[in-house]
C-alpha cells in the first residue's frame, strides 16, 4: 500500500541512491538535483581557488624586467662584474687562457652535473663565462668574481653560506649545491655588448 505509493511518486521514495538489486529504489529526481547542485558549487569553488593561487605567481611588472644589456669592454681578463637581471645577480666573467684550459682539462664524467665549458658558453666566446650569481644550494651569492675574493679550491666561485665550490666553468665541484651555476639565456649583440634574457 504505502510502498506502492512510493513507486507512483518517485519523489516520495526514501532517499536511497542505488539500483533496485542493491535494495534501493533507484535515484530520485531530488537525488539528481542534489548531486548536480553540490557538484556545480564544487566546480565553482574550485574555479575561485585558481585566481587565489595564481595571484602568488610573479606579476607582469616583475616579468617585464626580463632583459638587460651589458657592456663588456671594461672587464679585464681574469676578472668579472656582477649585474642585476630580474632582480637577481649575474656574473659576467672574462676567463684567462689558463682558466679556460683548466676547465677543459676536467674529465666531464667525474662531475656532479656533467657539462663542458663549451656547452656553458657561446661558440668562439669560451672565455666569457656568464652565469647566475645564485648558488644552486640555497641561493646565496658566491664570492670570486673579482680576483681579490675567495675563489675556493677550484679557482671559480666559493659560496660563503654553506661552502659550495665551483670551478672556472661555474660547475659545482664540492659542497652541498646540487647543480652548476645556472647559465641564463643570453646573446652577443656585438663584440662588446651582450644581452641577457
Amino acid at each position: 500500500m504505502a510502498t506502492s505509493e512510493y513507486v507512483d511518486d518517485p519523489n516520495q521514495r526514501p532517499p536511497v541512491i542505488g539500483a533496485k538489486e542493491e535494495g534501493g529504489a533507484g535515484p530520485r529526481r531530488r537525488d539528481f538535483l542534489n548531486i548536480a547542485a553540490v557538484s556545480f558549487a564544487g566546480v565553482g569553488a574550485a574555479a575561485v581557488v585558481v585566481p587565489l593561487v595564481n595571484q602568488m605567481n610573479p606579476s607582469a611588472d616583475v616579468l617585464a624586467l626580463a632583459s638587460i644589456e651589458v657592456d663588456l669592454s671594461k672587464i679585464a681578463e681574469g676578472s668579472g662584474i656582477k649585474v642585476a637581471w630580474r632582480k637577481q645577480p649575474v656574473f659576467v666573467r672574462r676567463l684567462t687562457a689558463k682558466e679556460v684550459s683548466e676547465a677543459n682539462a676536467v674529465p666531464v664524467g667525474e662531475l656532479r652535473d656533467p657539462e663542458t665549458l663549451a656547452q656553458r658558453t657561446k661558440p668562439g666566446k669560451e672565455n666569457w663565462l656568464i652565469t647566475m650569481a645564485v648558488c644552486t644550494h640555497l641561493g646565496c651569492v658566491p664570492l670570486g668574481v673579482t680576483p681579490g675574493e675567495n675563489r675556493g679550491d677550484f679557482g671559480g666561485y666559493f659560496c660563503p653560506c654553506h661552502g659550495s665550490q665551483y670551478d672556472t666553468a661555474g660547475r659545482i665541484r664540492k659542497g652541498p649545491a646540487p647543480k652548476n651555476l645556472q647559465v641564463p639565456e643570453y646573446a652577443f649583440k656585438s663584440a662588446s655588448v651582450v644581452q641577457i634574457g
Partner: protein
Amino acid sequence: MSFPWAENYEPKHPLMKWMDAKLPLPRLVYNAVGAGYPVPRNLNYFWNFGVLAGVALTIQIVTGIVLAMHFASNSDMAFTSVEGIMRDVNGGWLLRYMHMNGASMFFIVVYIHIFRGLFYGSYKAPREMVWLLGVVIFLLMMATAFMGYVLPWGQMSFWGAQVITGFFSAIPILGDPIHTWLLGGFAPDNAALNRFFSLHYLLPFVIAGVIVLHIWALHIPGSGNPTGVDVKGPQDTVPFHPYYTAKDGFGVGVFMIVFAILLFFYPNYLGHPDNYIQANPLSTPAHIVPEWYFWPFYAILRAFTVNWFWIPAKLWGVLAMFSSILLLFFLPWLDNSPVRSANYRPAYRIAFWVLVVDVLILGWIGKSPAEEPYVRIGQVAAMYYFAHFLLIVPIIAMVEKTKPLPNSISESVLHGEAEEAAPIGVGSAH
C-alpha cells in the same frame, strides 16, 4: 569537562544571571581558568610555562598591531620605516625592542614548555591530542617568526628569506616553480615582502585559535602533574583559581623581570648586526645565521654535505630538517612506556638530559660557520637527535625497569609534609 567535584558556577548578581542565560561566557572562563577547573595540587614551576607562552603571544600581538601602524610594507621603504620607528615614532624603539625580544622570550618559554612535556611524559595518553596541537602551534610560530624577521628588510632578513624559501627549490621537478610561486618573483622582493607581512599579521591569530583547541583538549583529561599519576579524587586537586592563578602570577612576574633585563640592557644581544644594513640582493653577508631559535634546525639542515643514493645532499638536508619537527607528531606512539614522569624512569631520565645537551650542541653548530670541525660535530649531533626519538626512546620503553609510582598525588604530597611537620628524628622513623 574535567572532574565531577569541580566547583559549579553560580552567578549571584542579577546581571550575571541574565548574562549566564543569554551568553554563558563568564561560565566558560570560570570553568577554564577559574575555580571550576580542578588541577593536581602538586604542580611545580615548570607548569607555569603554558601561561607564560600565552602572555608572550599577547605581548607579540599587542606590540605587533601598533608596529603595523608605522611600518611600510614595501621593499623600498620597509627598512627606512623600521629605522623611523626606532628614531622618530614616539616610544617606537621600545615597542620594536619589545616585539623583537618578545619573540625570543616566546621561544625560550615554549622550548621550556616542550621539554617539560618531554620530561614528564605530557605527550602520552590521554593527552596525545594536546601534544599534537602543541606541535602545530610550534610550526605556526616558526613560520610567523621567520616571516616577521624578513619584514625589516635588512641583510639578514633578505638572505634569510632567500635561504629559507630556497628549501622549497629542493623539491624534485616542481621545486623551482614552487619557489617562484612562493616569492612571487625570482628572488625575494616587494611581492614576497608584502605577502610575508600579510601572513605575519594573520598567523598569530591562527596560533591563538589553535591555543584554544590546545587548552580545550587539555581540559578534557585535565592537567598532568610531576608524578604522572592520575588524579583519583578531590583530595588530589585544588581549584585553578586562586591557587594556580597566584602561582602563575608569580611566574609572570619573574618572566617580566627577565624580559625587562633583556629589553632594556641587551636589546640587540639576540639579534644580528647585519640586519641593520639594508637588504642588498647583490651581496651576501659573509656568515648567514638564522635567529637563535632556529639554530638547532639549521644545524640539521647543514648536516648533509654529500649525495646519498639518488637523493641530492640539498634535498636530504631539507627533508631532515622538516622531519626533525614532524617526528614529534609520532612521539606519543614511539614511547610506549606506561609510566609518564621521568622521575620514575631512570633510563629515560638520562636519555632526556642527553637530548637536552644534544639540542644545545646542535644550536651551537647552527650558529657556527660551515667549516670543520663544526660540520662533523653537527652530523653526529643530528644523527643522535634522530636516534633518540626513533631508537633510544622506543627501546627504553621496552626494556626499562621503572621505579614504583606513588599510590596517589595526595599521598606523595602529604607524605613529605608529614615528614617536615614532625620533630627531628621522629618523622623519618614513622
